[in-house]
Structure formats: C-alpha cells, structure tokens
C-alpha cells in the first residue's frame, strides 16, 4: 500500500469510528453511553499524548495537571461564557502553562523530564489545594451551568476524533518528521536543521491543549470538582499506560487500547477495582518487555516469535535440570 492509500484508509477508519460513536447514544443504554464517554476521553488523551511523547520519547506525566487546569477553567468560565468558548479557553490556558513548563524543562533528558513533569503536576495540585484553603476558603467548585448529556458526549467525541485526525495529519507533515528525528537522535536532528526546542515546546503544548479541552468538557459530568478529583495523578497514569500498551508511536494503538481498557475497567470496576489496576500494571510490564511497539505492532510474526522463544526457554530449563540431575 502506498502512502496515499494508507492515508485514505486511515481517514475512512476514522470516519467509521466517528459514525459508530455518534450512533451509540441512540441505541445504547445509559451504562454503555457512560462507558463510551470515558473511552472517548481516553482516546483523546492518549492519542494526543502518543503523538508527541511516543515519537520524541519524552514521557510526560503532566496530563493530569492540564486536565485539572481545563476543568477548573470551565468551572469558572461557564458562568460567563458559552460552552465551546469555555472549552477553548481551557485548552488555551493549559497550552500556555505547558509552554512555560516546557521552556523550563524540555532541555532535560527523558527520565529527568518524566520525573519533573510528575513533580510539577503534584506541585500544581498542592498549590491549588492550598490556594483554595487560604484564599477562597472553600475546597472545590460547584458547577451551576451544566449542558445536557448529549452536548457533553458530542464534544468529547469531537475532541477524540480531532485528536486522531491531528495525529493522521501531523504524522505526515514536517512537524511529525521532526518529532521522529528528535526521538531517534535529537542532536543529529539539530545539525540537520531542526529547531528542536521550538518543536518540543509546540508538541508539548499540543498535548496540553487536548488534555485541557477534555478536562474542561468532563468537569461538567461531575458537577462538583475539587483538586483531588480533577488533578488526580491517576488520570495521567492511565493515559500513559493506555498509550504505551497500545503502542505510543502508532496511530491506532492508543485508540485500540483505550477501547479495550474502558471495557475492562467497567467490567472489573464493580467487583474488584484493584484487580483492574493490577492487570494494568502487569500488562504494562509485559508489553514493555515483550511488545515494545505496543498492541498495534502485533503481527503474526510476533506470535511465532514468542512461541519459539518460549520453547527455547523450556528447553533451556530442561537442559539445566539434566545438568544438575
């Protein structure tokens, strides 16, 4: 398949996905729609995360910070602004914060960056908590202006589709190539003319904008938000996990994983939420060890490779026993 055919295929798949998601509220139960909403949220979050962090290998743990910023923005802004404007504002403010954070932090190597973004996320969370305690006196905010369920669903769906669409487009652009170059060999890319600093900040701001928009949209679902819920680091962790297990560098990986995990989460959540989390952790470990490209890189060859590998392992165990016996 040449490049143009791949593009058409991707766009068609996206269209099909969008259509199916659009139709869902009309025949699905309340429970299914709620599950779909969470799924779409994570499609948006992990696809945008994967686009920047997957290619450049700068693992950002700051998603929760931007999500929370978006949530608080819409909580405050909805009283004065229209729905879409609040979302846009949430995205915008998150992007600005990302530019500031990124300018300070993006010159550091991968692991330092990951740890730092986590530290900054927690810093923001504690700062907001402290600010609320001292200045406003109340913890959290109540959302008074709440749009109906369909609006929320459509917005999050739109964000998810947009995230995948942007992924499709950017991967083919110079920006996407620059991101890949940064991930492969940053200094080399610089000597070939890539302004890595600018590209990194831009990419980081893009993930922040999506996270902020999603946060702004999802805040209204809870009607009452506080730092503990919207700045919950687990949101960022789950985004990262889903993107990594699905295959952060691929287009469809995060989407596939988001669907799989949403289903898994809902089925396990009521009986044993810890089992769900444990399986997340275990799957991540297995995926990093045996499938670094993620679910999306699964091919028939992979399975036969595993089969060979496990047979070899069994054989080596047997020969060890013979040696010791």
């Amino acid at each position, binding site marked *: 398949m040449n490049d143009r055919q791949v593009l058409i295929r991707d766009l068609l798949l996206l269209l099909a996905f969008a259509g199916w998601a659009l139709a869902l509220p009309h025949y699905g139960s309340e429970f299914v729609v709620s599950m779909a909403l969470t799924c779409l949220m994570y499609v948006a979050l992990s696809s945008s995360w994967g686009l920047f962090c997957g290619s450049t290998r700068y693992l950002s743990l700051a998603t929760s910070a931007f999500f929370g910023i978006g949530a608080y923005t819409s909580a405050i802004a909805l009283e004065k602004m229209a729905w879409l404007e609040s979302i846009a504002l949430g995205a915008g403010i998150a992007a600005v914060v990302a530019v500031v954070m990124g300018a300070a932090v993006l010159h550091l190597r991968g692991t*330092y960056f990951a740890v730092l973004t986590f530290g900054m996320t927690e810093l923001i969370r504690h*700062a907001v*908590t402290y600010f609320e305690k001292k200045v406003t006196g109340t913890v959290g905010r109540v959302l008074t202006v709440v749009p109906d369920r369909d609006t929320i669903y459509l917005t999050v769906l739109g964000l998810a589709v947009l995230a995948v669409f942007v992924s499709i487009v950017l991967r083919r652009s110079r920006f996407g190539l620059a991101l890949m170059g940064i991930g492969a060999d940053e200094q080399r890319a610089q000597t070939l003319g890539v302004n890595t600093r600018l590209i990194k900040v831009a990419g980081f701001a893009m993930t922040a904008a999506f996270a902020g928009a999603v946060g702004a949209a999802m805040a209204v679902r809870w009607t009452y938000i506080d730092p503990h819920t919207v700045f919950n680091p687990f949101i960022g962790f789950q985004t990262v996990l889903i993107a990594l297990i699905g295959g952060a560098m691929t287009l469809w990986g995060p989407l596939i994983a988001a669907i799989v995990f949403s289903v898994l989460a809902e089925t396990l959540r009521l009986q044993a939420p810890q089992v769900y989390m444990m399986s*997340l*952790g275990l799957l991540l*470990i297995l995926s990093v060890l045996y499938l670094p490209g993620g679910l999306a890189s699964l091919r028939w060859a992979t399975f036969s490779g595993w089969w060979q590998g496990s047979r070899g392992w069994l054989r080596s165990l047997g020969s060890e026993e013979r040696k010791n016996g």
Partner: protein
Amino acid sequence: MAAESGDGQAQPGQARLEIKKGFPRSAFGSSPSRGRHQRPGKAVSAVSLVQTLMTLFSWFELIASGLITGGIYALVALGLNLQYGLMRILNIAHGEFLMLGAYLTWMAHAVWGISPLLMVPVSFLVLMALGVLIHKLCFRRLTATSPNLDIFEARGLMVAFGLMFLVQNFASFMWGGDLRGYDYLTEPVKIGEAQFAGNKLLVFGLALLFSGALIALLRFTLLGKGVRALMQSPTGAQLVGIDTQRLHPLMFGIGLGLSGMAGCLLSMAYTITPSMGEPYTVTALIVITLGGFGSMSGALAGGLLLGVIEALGMHFTNPSLKALLSYSVFIAVLLLRPRGLFAK
C-alpha cells in the same frame, strides 16, 4: 543588677517559637509561682535566660525531629540511588516495597506475635530476595533487548511504573484500604528538656546505622569497590573481571531490601496503608536529586537535610505547605543544579 534594656523584649524569632501551635511543651511564659521581687529587671533577666535555654532545646527538638524523618528518607533514598546509579533503573515503585515491608512486619506482629525488631533483618532478607527475583524476571530482559541507554532507562521507568500499579493494588486487595498500625515502644524518652517517642528514636538510630553500614560496605569491601567501579565505568569494570550478571540482581535486591527494612522501621511508629509508599518514593527522588544521582553520601546528607527543611518549613509556615515545599525544592534543584547540591 539591672537587666540590659533589650532583654525583656522577646526577639521576633523567639516569640514565634513560643506561640506557634503544636510547638513542644516547654512551659515558659507566665508561671505564677515565679514569686520574685517585683523588680522587673532581675525577673526579666532570669526568665529570659531560662527562655533562651528553653528556646535552644525547642530548636533542638525541632531539628532533631527533622533529622529523624530525614534518617528514614536517607535509608529509602540510598536504596533508590543504588539502583539508579548502578543500573540506571529509576525504580519509581520503590516506595511500594517499603509498604510491603511495613505490612509484612505488621502481619508478623499482629498474627504471629513476632517482635518488630526481629522483623528488621527478616524484612530486609525477604525484600532482597523479592528484588533479585524481580530483576531477573523483568529488568534482565530489558538489558538484553534495549538498543541504547536512553531507551533502556525509559523502558525501565515504564516497567517500574507497572510494578507500582501492581504492588500497590495487590496490597490494597490483600489487606484492604483500612489504616493499620500497632504500638511499639511508644513511651517517650527525654533528652534534656526535649521529648521523643522511643520508637522514633529507635527508627532514627537504626536508619543511621544501616545507612552508615551500606556506605561503609561500598567504600571498604571488595564487593563495594566492585559496585563503585561498575557505577563509574561499566565496560572497564567488566574488563577487569567484575561479574555484572551476578552483581546487578544482587544490588537491586539490596536496594529493595533497604526499602523493605525502612518500611519495617516505619511500621513501628506510623500508620500503615497501601498508599503509604508513594510519598516516600517521591521523597527519595527528591533526596537523590539533592544529593546528586549516584552519590551515596550525598543521599545520606540529602535525606537528613530534606527532613530538617521539611520540619522547619512546616513549623514556620504551614503544615499543609509541606508537599508544596518539597516539590518546589525538587524542581528548583533539578533545574538549577541538576548534578545535586553537593556537586563540585
């Protein structure tokens, strides 16, 4: 006879030390039975002398309590440092193993009546064995399959991430989310006018002891020299015959063992929950950043320093700012002095 003029005026620092809530019980201030002459000068000078001594002890208590927490921080950080400095594995699940050590000790104590003191070496050994196993199962493969160091570090981080999820939720699953704890050596011990809980003193003492032992081990034994050689130059060390294959799992295990031991010590004095580990991971990260990645004595100094900074910060500002303070210090150091506070 007459007191110096400024003496009766309490200095701003003093006054705050006295009036701040939660400050130790030193009872200076008005004591009705002072029953002295009404000559303000003499009374003031005597009182202020006592006040100064009291204040000194209060400072001592404050700093000492900071050092106690710092001792634990140092112990946990040393383990993390060993893993990162030697193997470039940033084990962000480190705190979870601390939590396991705490639960293990609690179970031993509550269910079988074993003394926590006995559990100190036991928890070390159990967690060390677990560490060796984990290294062999998870990280060994990464070493073989990662094309370069950056990718290895990133993958190691992700595996540790997964471990964090796995272990924390396993504990939650096994033991439930209720707070647990037990009492052990809670009678207070007095040093001068300052009081400390007996168990916290024990924790501090043991933490310092084991930290010192590790540092001594690394500095003076052949094994330790091998480890330090590996840290400085992996290829060079292998060329002179140091066995990386056996050393890495062992050192990873020791790091985890230290964490478990810290958990055992902590369980004597603090409550136990499945999520207790995470803050310690973060703190350990902050400590090794302060002390410089890979530096053992830096981790020790950094841990104690952070404990004191936190104690002072909590006291003079606001306890809820503790987290804010720690993270700010962390970010500031990473950005301004990424090689650690003590780097040349």
